[in-house]
């Protein structure tokens, strides 16, 4: 399988990168890994399940603060503290999902955006714990490579998880919710349970990643933790690559990250406008993103291959 070879090459390159590259390349890759993690997480609830969230940085920010506070006040080792950040994100996402996922369409999107703003306001306001706008500082890490490798492991883990999801009945049922939630419900799909599960799943990795990123920066403040720019960039990446696909978020994250870097270096004053135009153009030309187009043109195999393989194993009685 060529897919497996590509995955192995990517894995090898990612593993070798910090050993052989300039600090600049490593820091670029850390940013990239961060966006891969956020994009894949967002893809689960918004791409597969169809609940477009404009507030997923909430979980990133919560994880960042939780982990930083655990390190500062409980002297917990940073990898464990990052896991604590993930645990808090999950613990918040579960009840939140039960409430927020009653909202549909733009109401959910705006509700999530409002929530992220509320968390940001809390981080500003609760100064006795968060130091407000000053932010919290951690002792700088001497060796950034362990953080890099954990981020990479999380990113690859999410790609694999998404591949499994795409080939599972759980994934199909999420797609059914995306297309016609009432219809799916009428046909006996346990929609509430499934979408809450997807929401919680989509919150875990951003929580962990927030903790790792705060350790990497050795600093966290409200605008970094709950940044709308991070949110919108994540969404643009998945839109570009293809919502509800296995490789869409990866393609989107790589292409847009490279585009940002190149344009930022050449046209520092207007690069954001150019990125915006590029995204608008892509959405106009390929409203579903690059991957679905490639699948339709036959350049890439369609997703959900496991079911197809099962189907070809049994010979249908009539065909």
């Amino acid at each position: 399988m060529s897919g497996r070879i590509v995955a192995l090459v990517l894995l090898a390159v990612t593993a070798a990168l910090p050993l052989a590259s300039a600090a600049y390349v490593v820091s670029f890759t850390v940013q990239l890994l961060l966006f891969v993690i956020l994009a894949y997480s967002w893809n689960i609830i918004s791409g597969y399940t169809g609940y477009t969230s404009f507030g997923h940085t909430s979980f990133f920010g919560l994880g960042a603060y939780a982990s930083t506070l655990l390190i500062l006040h409980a002297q917990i080792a940073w990898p464990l503290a990052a896991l604590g950040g993930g645990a808090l994100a999950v613990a918040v996402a579960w009840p939140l999902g039960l409430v927020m996922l009653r909202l549909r369409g733009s109401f959910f999107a705006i509700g999530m955006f409002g929530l992220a703003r509320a968390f940001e306001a809390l981080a500003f306001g609760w100064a006795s714990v968060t130091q407000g706008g000053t932010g919290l500082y951690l002792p700088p890490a001497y060796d950034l490579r362990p953080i890099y490798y954990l981020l990479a492991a999380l990113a690859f883990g999410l790609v694999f998880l998404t591949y499994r999801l795409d080939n599972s009945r759980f994934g199909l049922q999420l797609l059914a919710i995306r297309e016609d939630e009432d219809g799916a419900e009428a046909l006996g799909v346990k929609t509430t349970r499934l979408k809450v599960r997807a929401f919680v799943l989509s919150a875990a990795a951003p929580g962990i990643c927030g903790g790792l990123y705060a350790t990497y920066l050795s600093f966290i403040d409200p605008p970094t933790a709950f940044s709308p720019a991070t949110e919108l960039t994540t969404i643009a990446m998945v839109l570009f690559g293809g919502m509800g696909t296995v490789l869409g978020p990866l393609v989107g994250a790589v292409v847009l990250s490279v585009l940002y870097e190149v344009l930022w270096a050449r046209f520092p004053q207007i690069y954001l406008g150019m990125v915006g135009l590029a995204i608008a153009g892509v959405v106009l030309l390929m409203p579903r993103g690059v991957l679905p187009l490639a699948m339709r043109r036959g350049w890439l195999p369609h997703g959900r291959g496991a079911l197809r393989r099962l189907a070809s194993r049994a010979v249908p009685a009539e065909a």
Partner: protein
Amino acid sequence: MGATPLLVVEGVVKRFGGVVAVNGATCSVAERSVTGLIGPNGSGKSTLFNCIAGVERPDAGQITFLGRRINGRSPSQICEIGLARTFQITRLFREMTVLENLVAVAHGLSDAAAVRRAQELLAMVEVGHLQHALAGTLSYGQRKLVEIARALMFAPKLLLLDEPFAGINPRLQNRILRYLERLRDRGVTLFLIDHEMRILLNICETVLAMDAGEIIAEGAPDVIRKDPRVLAAYF
């Protein structure tokens, strides 16, 4: 009615704001029977089906299936007991393949078993060759066939069919008729809404007539056809 009733509907009421869609409907469906439900447009037939399938909560009344009270239960609980339905306007997941449409709603089967079962059902309604086609690309008639196959994924004891014969040509109508007869012979109870008297005469033992949310007549199809109350409701 000697046979035991599989489904009993007693005094079901469903209001939408000021509209009383179902107004104290009472009826029963005998086990292993084929029962038709007719009535003018807007008389509440689809709403009654939605109440039975758990999609709408009745404001009053009771629905019993297999001796168990099912009103107030969720659609997935009702499916699991053995009641499945098709929609008046087909509701396939258009961006999934035909096979995926069936597998997505499977309950308690392994993926391999779900795929096998889906293929058998698609073969039964003679659309096996469409298994990998996107549902959104199917013709109207093909969608109707796939919906029937999908409803059968639950191995239901009772199948509710909301106008399975509407808007398709007589050849396909006859095909569907044949499939329904085969299901009946396998012991599936059928409860179907339709306006086509030709077909109801053909397959139903009993026909219920509904008007303004109430069941106004019940009997053999050729009797119901001439019932003055039914004629008054329609004309």
